[in-house]
């Protein structure tokens, strides 16, 4: 760990005060992200953060880096574009469970299978926060919300399984209030060569009285303390499909992960172009003879 790095995690903090509800899990999620970025030797000028829409998406405002706060559900394509144009830049995407697994589910599958070198942090509060408490794709089936007065009666999405099925090369889960472990896991995701996916339990203290801090504190099993081999696909499948327990830690990491840009030779800084047509551009015309 490069804790002696010159960049401090507060350098990633903007001077805008978060308007999150006091006690919101997103505070902890964000602090861990800033810490992990600093610890991995990044600084705001070489970091690009793409944020979704939702309470969670506000993170772009409270952190300091190159950033864009896009439209609902599309953080991953934007982050993909940034990384392709700028393989030299550290790219992070962050958003909520509604943003990522509902409106953006299709992009999640595809960014995962492309193995774009970025870190994707989902602040999973199992509810729609910003729109004031509707069911989200990760809400429990019996959870009563304003739009599911009798519970949704549908099984929740298992984002880790979705990632695994999409060919993910790094799958992890963390808990916003377990500050040190959370930052450690994000740090591993950043250092992973490829798509580093972290589902973060980030409790909504206003609209979700089921998936609370106490609930996670009591039920979380840390894979670090288990005899879990993250490089073992079958073992990963085991913990990911085990819906009886809530796990924290890195479930799966593919040791042979080759990120998209390396696989496709997308290694140039695309911002640099000549003042006129490229030198050999006449060849482009010649082709049509």
């Amino acid at each position, binding site marked *: 760990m490069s804790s002696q790095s010159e960049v401090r995690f507060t350098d990633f903090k903007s001077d805008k005060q978060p308007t999150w509800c006091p006690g919101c899990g997103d505070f902890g999620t964000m602090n861990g992200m800033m810490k992990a970025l600093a610890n991995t030797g990044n600084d705001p*000028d070489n970091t690009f953060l793409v944020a979704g829409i939702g309470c969670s998406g506000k993170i772009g405002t409270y952190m300091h880096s*190159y950033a864009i706060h896009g439209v609902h559900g599309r953080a991953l394509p934007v982050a993909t574009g*940034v990384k392709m144009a*700028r393989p030299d830049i550290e790219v992070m995407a962050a958003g909520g469970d509604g943003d990522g697994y509902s409106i953006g589910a299709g992009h999640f599958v595809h960014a995962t299978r492309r193995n774009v070198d970025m870190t994707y942090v989902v602040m999973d509060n199992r509810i729609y926060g910003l729109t004031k408490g509707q069911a989200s794709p990760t809400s429990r089936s019996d959870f009563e919300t304003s739009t599911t007065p009798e519970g949704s009666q549908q099984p929740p999405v298992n984002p880790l399984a979705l990632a695994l099925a999409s060919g993910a090369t790094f799958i992890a889960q963390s808990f916003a209030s377990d500050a040190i472990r959370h930052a450690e896991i994000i740090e591993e995701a950043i250092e992973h060569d490829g798509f580093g996916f972290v589902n973060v339990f980030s409790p909504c203290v206003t609209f979700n009285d089921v998936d609370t801090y106490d609930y996670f504190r009591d039920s979380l099993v840390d894979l670090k303390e288990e005899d879990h081999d993250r490089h073992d696909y079958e073992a990963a499948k085991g913990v990911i499909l085990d819906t009886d327990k809530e796990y924290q830690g890195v479930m799966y990491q593919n040791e042979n992960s080759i990120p998209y840009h390396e696989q496709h030779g997308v290694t140039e800084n695309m911002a640099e172009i000549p*003042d006129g047509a490229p030198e050999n551009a006449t060849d482009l015309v010649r082709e049509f*003879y």
Partner: protein
Amino acid sequence: MTEDLNWAIGGEAGDGIDSTGKIFAQALSRAGRHVFTSKDFASRIRGGYTAYKIRTSTDRVQSVVDRLDILVALTQRTIDENLDELHEGSAVIYDGERSWDAEIPDEITAVDVPLKSLAEEAGGAIMLNVVALGAACELTGFDVAYLDEALEKRFGGKGSKIVDNNKDAARKGRDYVQENYDLDLGYALETTDEDYVLLNGDEAIGMGALAAGCRFYAGYPITPATNVMEYLIGRIEQYGGHVVQAEDELSAINMALGAARGGARSMTATSGPGIDLMAETFGLVATSETPLVIVDVMRSGPSTGMPTKQEQGDLNMTLYGGHGEIPRFVVAPTTIDECFWKTVEAFNYAEKYQTPVYVVADLALAVTEQTFTPETFDMDAVEIDRGNLLEDDQVAEWLDDQGRFRAHAATEDGISPRAIPGMTDGAHMSTGLEHDELGRRTEDTEVRVEQVDKRNRKVETAKAEEAWDYREFGDEDADDLVVSWGSNEGALREAVALLEDDDVPVRVISVPYIFPRPDLSEEFEAADDVIVVECNATGQFADVLEHDTLQRVKRINKYTGVRFKADELAEEITAKLKEEVPAQ
């Protein structure tokens, strides 16, 4: 002796119609003849019928006409579909040995060539189309040797044996006609020393993008825009760029946006339904002031409409689409060579004004191939203007007193400094939410107004700084004015000549800029009659121009799915001019 020859090959989709047509078009172009091609996906009879048509002349050709001189018919339907275009001097090449009894009207010369058998002799039935090309060469007095280069180009990748077999097949077709027919249809295709290039609008857009420094492209396949992506893949890499086939259009435009924020010149292309999907992000692109080029190659709508048919129905969508009020630029090339140049311009506007720029083309431009002198695409004339993209050491000038970068500084001309990742101290946030100079969300009434005005000011600056001109032809002293946009220009140029012959002089203005656009008030004022020609039912451009000039116009609208033809336009213009002038 006809100088201007119209040739076509038609059959079922999958018969290799397109590539055969293209081989002939390339051969003609190599022989120094001008070529204008069109693709026919018939709508009268449903099914797989498809045709590739070539009009060729030693003069420049830029439209289609209702006449067919030589037709290679692989099916009866090909003959039926084109009956009204065949005339006494026409010839139909067909294969009498195949299982259909071709019905060809008596006055048309039927040339029965055992295409399949001869192809088999040359090495494979698959070459029957090439045998037909050889036969067509004989009928038109065109040296079969001109086909050789085009065959090499088409089949070179498959090895010299295949190329040789094809050359042989063409000669077998020629010899067969020579030996079995004694025909003089009066065609003798002249050749010249010119070396033309032959390309379509989609390719011109792709080439323009590469010339302009586009490095990232994301798209989702859709007719008739897919060719842009297919062109760029395999070429953009030579310049360090990359193409992604995204999972949908939402993703495509968002990826393109991301790359643009990374500092790359970035583009996406789609057609109607895809433009609808992109609308939400289009607003984000504008609000976050991201330079982005979005190509809409229009086809018949709404919904999935008629995907392989011509229309100019998206003007309103590109001009007004998206919720809220979105400053944007809309350029609309009117010719294939303009597809190249307007794309180059679009990249410059996008970066200079940090704004989305639509390039609106139409199916007729996109799929039509036309010959040009190579100098038409003079790469030395391509200029790249990156606008206010800062150098590293300029960032400091734009920091506020707390050292924060003023990414959306409300400057006088509305154009802000632009810092991209990696620039020291340039880090900032951009968002689709209303924001202050620093890019931070705000609902402050004053800041809201300031930022809306700032973004709109860019358009005012652009209106003042750029030449939003138009092209003019016909009789400049004529009392009557015809206005057009998009691909209608070619047909109009020929229509004007026909009208002149009939002593109906008109002045024509072809407008390549939809927004900002030239002010035509004076031209309208000076004209007796103004007719706006467009391929849509409601006259979207006519509406816009009436609004601009406060003057009523007459309208010629075609929405059959087929592009205008010169003779048809000449007739319609004549008829329109006779109509009562609409009330002011």
